[in-house]
């Protein structure tokens, strides 16, 4: 079987298009590259959706935590503590079994036990908490002068936030937020190992990598392939976020601009 044939059979296998049966013996390198790459579709899907939705909630949570009103502050603080203080792995498990319980009582929760929705929700809350803490830190370090100048120019309320506070907050938070995005993509590999079933063997990149490692009993091929894909994904994320960073900093003189540095520190 030629490699092109394999790609057309298994290229979209992770979303259910193409050959039903996974290869069971005589694995070729091409098959491993194709299937693990196909699994990356899920990693990108989870990551992009959670990031996009989490961005909005993170802004709200950060504002809530910085608020003087305890009715906003306390829930935000607890939200951040809950999702940053516990392992993502346990969060996945808990959410999955919670949705299972809910489903047996209420019809509406049927799709929540599937990874495409349930895991996305967990990742969404999780990234909101981490990014919320980052945005909160940035909010606290906005130069006092910026805010005072905005007052002097007659900005107030939402206009002040929209035009002055928010852009500065984004600019300060962006390098840290880039790292958070990278880590979110790494965290998506946990999904199919934490309760959420891979329906009809439609899993993510790590799911297929461990499938091959189990079948061939040789970890030295699938895992490095996975690593290669993730390094590529990381580079793409850094590139895209770097473009946004350039735009956020475009009014500043060159030497003041904050560079994005890859600083992996956390794990969930």
């Amino acid at each position, binding site marked *: 079987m030629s490699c092109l044939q394999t790609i057309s059979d298994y290229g979209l296998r992770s979303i259910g298009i193409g050959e039903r049966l996974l290869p069971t*013996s005589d694995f070729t390198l091409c098959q491993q590259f194709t299937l693990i790459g196909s699994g990356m579709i899920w990693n990108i899907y989870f990551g992009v959706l959670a990031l996009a939705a989490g961005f909005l909630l993170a802004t709200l949570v950060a504002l809530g935590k910085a608020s003087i009103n305890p009715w906003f502050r306390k829930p935000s603080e607890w939200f951040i*503590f*809950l999702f940053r*203080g*516990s*392992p*993502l*792995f*346990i*969060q996945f*498990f*808990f959410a999955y*079994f*919670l949705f*299972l*319980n809910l489903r*047996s009582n209420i019809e509406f929760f049927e799709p929540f036990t599937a990874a495409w929705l349930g895991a996305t929700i967990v990742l969404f809350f999780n990234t909101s908490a981490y990014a919320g803490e980052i945005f909160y830190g940035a909010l606290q370090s906005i130069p006092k002068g910026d805010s005072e100048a905005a007052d002097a120019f007659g900005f107030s309320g939402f206009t002040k936030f929209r035009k002055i506070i928010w852009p500065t907050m984004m600019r300060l938070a962006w390098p840290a937020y880039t790292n958070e995005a990278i880590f979110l993509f*790494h*965290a998506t*590999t*946990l999904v199919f*190992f934490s309760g959420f079933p891979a329906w009809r063997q439609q899993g993510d990149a*790590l799911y297929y*990598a*461990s499938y091959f*490692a189990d*079948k*061939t*009993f*040789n*970890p*030295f091929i699938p*895992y490095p392939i*996975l*690593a290669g894909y*993730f*390094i590529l994904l*990381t580079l793409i994320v850094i590139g895209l976020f770097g473009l946004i960073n350039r735009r956020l900093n475009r009014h500043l003189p060159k030497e003041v601009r904050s560079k994005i540095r890859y*600083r*992996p*520190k*956390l*794990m*969930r």
Partner: protein
Amino acid sequence: MFEYCTNPESLSGLAWLSCYLTTGKHLSFYTSFGTVLVLLAITAPVALGFGFGGAAMARSNFSPLRWFGKSYIAIVRGVPDIAFFMFFVIALDQGFEYLRHQAICPDWDQPIRQGNDFIVCDAAKLPLSTSPQWVHEVYGFSLAVLTFAIVFGAFAANVIFGAMNAVPKAQIETASAYGMTRRQTFWRIIVPQMWVYALPGLSNLWMVLIKATPLLFLLGVEDIVYWARELGGTKHARFTEYPHGDWRMWYFLVLLVFYLAFTKVSEVVLDRLMKRLSQGQATAGGEALRRAAT
């Protein structure tokens, strides 16, 4: 455990619960919390050792050592950690068996990799198929510890490498002005001073390590996640004296609370430690601390 537990069907309410929560399997569940703590207690110093070694290598004058140290730090950081966990457990196991195979059965003529099988001679199997159950468990656990130590050693190496570089240059220049060799400078000037700079990063790492412990489950150790799934699943009256529905949600809620409490306590303790260590440091020291943390 209690005397009245002999006939659970007749019990209800709290009495039933007290019996249910003290079954043999539940006691194993409670000891598995100990497993997690033991893992942390062993892994933390070992990972610190790996980190120290990695950082020292990355600073080495001898270039192959330096490349090895630097790539150790770089590779482990760029890839999802869970992939490393799953990789190292098999890779280490096969590595050990391969080495033993070479040592014990040198006259074995078949290839070790035959298609999809990894075959070593019986005497080289780890652990030996004849050995008792606890040897298997201890072996699995030590593989897990080693895996954790390798992955977190790389993180620690990164922190310690940064801390070594954060020691003020003037100190090192003074040392060489006094005629100390590179080795003396390293052991007498850099190592004693770097800990203050490394502490913020290391305490961050400790929190990360705590949150990574549920991954033990993926390494095949019977840890709290394993028991929570096992005990929480639906139990039918035919197989157990304590039938119940799907309670896994509640078991995982307990785990969630356990981890939240654990991280909270660690946070408080580490904050205190940091304050204690920063005491007596010049104000510039506090400033540098903040810088080393990033």
